[in-house]
């Protein structure tokens, strides 16, 4: 798929160190509007760290990272970078949805309360509208009848679908999925992937870190293979998953396919 306009997410030479450990060693990638990028690779390769950098949950040490044309966490003035105040960072994050491997639903709130929390507190939407929108979203992820359930009363797949509804409630420009099915029982994986497929069909821009190769092959516009903090290769699913050109990619895929 080719799109025009400004990239929804653009990384140029992104580096991240934790002490002496260099987790990201120069990541370059571009995600255009309505594009779906799947990042694959062995654990510890820096996939999740990169995702966390995109919404500034983790600060990058070098390079440029922008979402919707704006630097993440910084403002450039007279050739110098200025850290953004917390308020501005929160504003940027509100535009980026994130779904976590371990769901991270607010445990003390019902499914519905989880979904309306950010629209109420961050956007200042009035309660009636927020609840109506949340019910629509819960229906969309197939959980209309679970609105009043607490996360502990839901299965992993149901929790993850509520988490997706919670992220969608903010109308994000970009969705980040951090191994959304890795913590699920095998039989629950498909119900979550089905929901994500619907979002893909709706044209939502997203970056998905995943180990589900079949899913990546089916929905991705670009597949990026990461190892050891660098992008080994990237391209169409057919090029990367079915016909990888690097030995490292081949050996990884031979283990997961």
């Amino acid at each position, binding site marked *: 798929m080719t799109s025009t306009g400004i990239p929804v997410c653009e990384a140029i030479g992104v580096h991240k160190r934790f002490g002496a450990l260099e987790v990201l060693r120069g990541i370059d990638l571009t995600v255009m509007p309505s594009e779906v990028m799947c990042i694959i690779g062995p654990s510890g390769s820096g996939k999740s760290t990169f995702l966390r950098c995109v919404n500034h*949950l983790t600060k990058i040490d070098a390079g440029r990272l922008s979402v919707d044309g704006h630097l993440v966490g910084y403002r450039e003035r007279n050739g110098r970078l200025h850290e953004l105040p917390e308020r501005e960072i929160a504003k940027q994050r509100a535009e980026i*949805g994130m779904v976590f491997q371990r769901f*991270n639903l*607010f445990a003390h709130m019902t499914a519905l309360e989880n979904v309306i929390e950010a629209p109420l507190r961050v956007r200042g939407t009035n309660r009636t509208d927020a609840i109506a929108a949340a019910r629509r979203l819960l229906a969309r992820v197939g959980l209309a009848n679970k609105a009043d359930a607490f*996360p502990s009363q839901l299965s992993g797949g149901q929790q993850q679908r509520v988490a997706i509804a919670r*992220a969608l409630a903010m109308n994000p420009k970009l969705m980040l999925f951090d191994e959304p099915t890795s913590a699920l029982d095998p039989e629950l994986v498909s119900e979550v992937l089905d929901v994500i497929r619907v979002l893909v069909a709706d044209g939502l821009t997203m970056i998905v870190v995943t180990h589900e190769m079949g899913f990546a092959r089916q929905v991705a516009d670009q597949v990026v293979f990461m190892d050891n903090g660098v992008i080994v290769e990237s391209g169409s699913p057919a090029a990367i998953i079915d016909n990888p050109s690097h030995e490292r990619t081949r050996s990884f895929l031979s283990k997961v396919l």
Partner: protein
Amino acid sequence: MSADIHAVPVRHPGRWAATAAVLVLLAMLVHTLVTNPRFQWDVVNRYFTTSAILTGLQRTLELTALAMAIGIVLGIILAVMRLSPNPLLSTTSWAYIWFFRGTPLLVQLIFWYNLAALFPKLGLGIPFGPQFVSGSANVFITTWTAALLGLGLNEGAYMAEIVRSGILSVDEGQQEAAYALGMRRMQVMRRIVLPQAMKVIIPPTGNQTIGMLKSSSLVSVIAVPELLYTAQIIYARTYQTIPLLIVASLWYLMVTSVLTMGQFYIERYFARGSSRALPPTPLEKLRRQATRFRALAAARQRERG
């Protein structure tokens, strides 16, 4: 279907011996309570609801409630400071806790009572600049304020550690999810972290409240007429020391019992969403027990019938 087992149960001679020993001790206790005239139960009865004692009780309750309120608010502030990335804030909080936990409460109370010796005049104004209002410390720091300050500031140090452990008990993923939605630090603390930390904070806070009810009796040394001091004033006059101490103790016991019950229901409320089944209330337990008895009786009836 196989038949139910009707086996001869194991005998427990040890349990019988222990039961007998405890029963003898209990009997001795009851015997002395009833027959020893020096308990002067008639005096206990006479003073139990006199207005002086009730006023003292009311002061004890007010002191406990206000000092706990100060302690909880201060504790939350100190805990958030302690976890702040700003080293000055976290060190200040650490030092506060170190000092107030490191000196006896009794000493702190006497210190506040004598504050005027250190600062004869207190005022409100710009730091190192002019003052808008000022006056004698003895006017501002009455025995009542000294008692409140002493108990509240000391409690703040303990509550800070309780709140901090509660905050740390909440999974980090909860905060990350909230930040990812665009929530601000204070919002995340107030809406997401603290409500979940409550589950860990409430039980020790209940203990602290019960502890506070009793440590509030320490302020009798600075002549605040709460429950114990009121009892002391009376027995200083009448020499009925034991019965009046019993009056005070009975009231402390009763209030403690009510607080324990309150704690159960508050804990139950904050356990929402965390466990599949909430612990049953005493009423529910009773009802369940009744249902079980009825079912058992019905079964026996059927067996016979």
